[in-house]
């Protein structure tokens, strides 16, 4: 999908890193097993995060096994198996990949995405039958998103709403919640996660969107008047950064209320360090640490 939700590897313990990789491989294998080997190419880090998070929220017992994999034939790798969170994340991965390709195809007729769509169609149809309610809501949100973008929505909060709601729907998967409270926490976490992804992606694409004349929420919110893109970026950095970091602080608050018995270290790493640094990188904020390093 976007691949913004990544752990900060140098700050991780080795066992956490291995476990994260085991989830990554677990999602990848689950896609292969459930939807066919070729679909494994759609794998993203974002859905791995989803698997780690929901696995922690559901309190399920996970098994780690060593397995050989066709993509890395030389060494056996740790893989999570028998986890419903991993299975769910792998399904979501396919559904999102399908919607993403559909969106690209709508933008302009690209032969690559059209043929990839054909390949994903069968698996997607099956998953749509499996999660009818989730898919209905997701499609509704995506329609709203397209409509708002067409209308050149002037508010970045409003423009980000459909995608935030979509992520909320994905994150709160009732069968994996241990209770109403957990679902409520996951909903708020997912909402803010979606908001962060949408706005961060918009800031990242500022230049291309302006060049191609595509919709960009920051352009409409802060009234871009044809100045240099870097200059515009400097003007809006503080305001955009405020919303992005505030969103992350809400993700952290929601996470602190979650009874995460496992994967705590990985999730803390991603939420408190990985996502923060990703945001700083894309905003182009230099940290004091980096200045010291370059001297």
């Amino acid at each position, binding site marked *: 999908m976007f691949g913004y939700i990544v752990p900060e590897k140098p700050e991780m313990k080795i066992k956490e890193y291995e476990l994260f990789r085991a989830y990554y491989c677990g999602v990848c294998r689950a896609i292969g097993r459930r939807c066919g080997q070729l679909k494994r190419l759609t794998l993203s880090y974002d859905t791995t995060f989803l698997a780690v998070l929901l696995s922690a929220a559901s309190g399920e017992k996970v098994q780690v096994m060593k397995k050989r994999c066709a993509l890395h034939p030389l060494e056996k790798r740790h893989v999570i198996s028998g986890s419903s969170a991993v299975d769910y994340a792998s399904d979501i991965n396919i559904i999102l990949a399908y919607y993403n390709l559909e969106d690209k195809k709508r933008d302009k007729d690209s032969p690559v995405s059209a043929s990839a769509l054909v390949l994903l169609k069968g698996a997607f149809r099956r998953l749509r039958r499996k999660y009818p309610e989730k898919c209905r809501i997701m499609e509704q949100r995506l329609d709203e998103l397209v409509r708002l973008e067409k209308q050149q929505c002037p508010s970045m*909060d409003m423009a980000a709403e459909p995608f935030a709601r979509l992520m909320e729907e994905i994150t709160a998967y009732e069968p994996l919640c241990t209770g109403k409270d957990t679902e409520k926490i996951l909903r708020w976490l997912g909402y803010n996660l979606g908001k962060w992804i949408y706005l961060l992606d918009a800031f990242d694409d500022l230049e291309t969107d302006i060049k191609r004349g595509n919709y960009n929420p920051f352009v409409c919110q802060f009234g871009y008047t044809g100045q240099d893109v870097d200059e515009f970026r400097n003007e809006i950095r503080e305001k955009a950064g405020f919303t992005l970091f505030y969103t992350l602080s*809400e993700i*952290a*608050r929601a996470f*602190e209320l979650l009874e995460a018995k496992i994967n705590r270290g990985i999730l803390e790493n991603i939420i408190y360090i990985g996502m923060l640094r990703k945001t700083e990188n894309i905003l182009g904020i230099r940290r004091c640490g980096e200045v010291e*390093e370059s001297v």
Partner: protein
Amino acid sequence: MKNPYEVLGIREGASEEEIKKAYRELVKKYHPDQYRDNPLSKLAEEKLAEINEAYDYLMKNVSSGGNSQYSGGASYGRSGADGWSDSGSDFFNQVKSHINSGNIRLAEEMLDSSRSRPAEWYYLKGIIFIRKGWYNEAYTHIQRAVNMDPANYEYRSALDRMNTSYNAYRTNPFNSGRYRSEPDLCTICQCLWCSDCCCECMGSDLISCC
């Protein structure tokens, strides 16, 4: 009751000092001020109550001497969850009570139907935006309320809370940048080379090959 050690996130048999330290940190983390204007505030309150209970229990049972003063610590953060001031018109008080009971949509409809828009209108609209997760709109509205009525403490503290929350995340303890402050290879070599030179000056040698 859950295992109090687990609630406080410490090992069993932890010392009084450790218990107090863990307790202080958790109270800070789940303090009602942290979760004001947040849809999860009720859950944070419950969590804090659980922490207080665990702390009270441990303080009563673990340390046998001189514990009477600590039971008072339970009052931490139990007040101020609904910190609305009672001033203002009936209309706005009604909107506030809807916000407090979590009925955000109704509160917003009421506000939107109102013609007059004093500072308080912008303030409440801002609070609703925070609850909805529309942080840019929230900041703009609360800022406007503060500009219209700079003397109002309530508006200003809401704005401060937003700024604090944003800063607290950015400077969170996990992101201390530990690995960045370690010396890199270049610095290490330089140190070795200098030490070697110094040793040689004194007539000895640290690295024999150079």
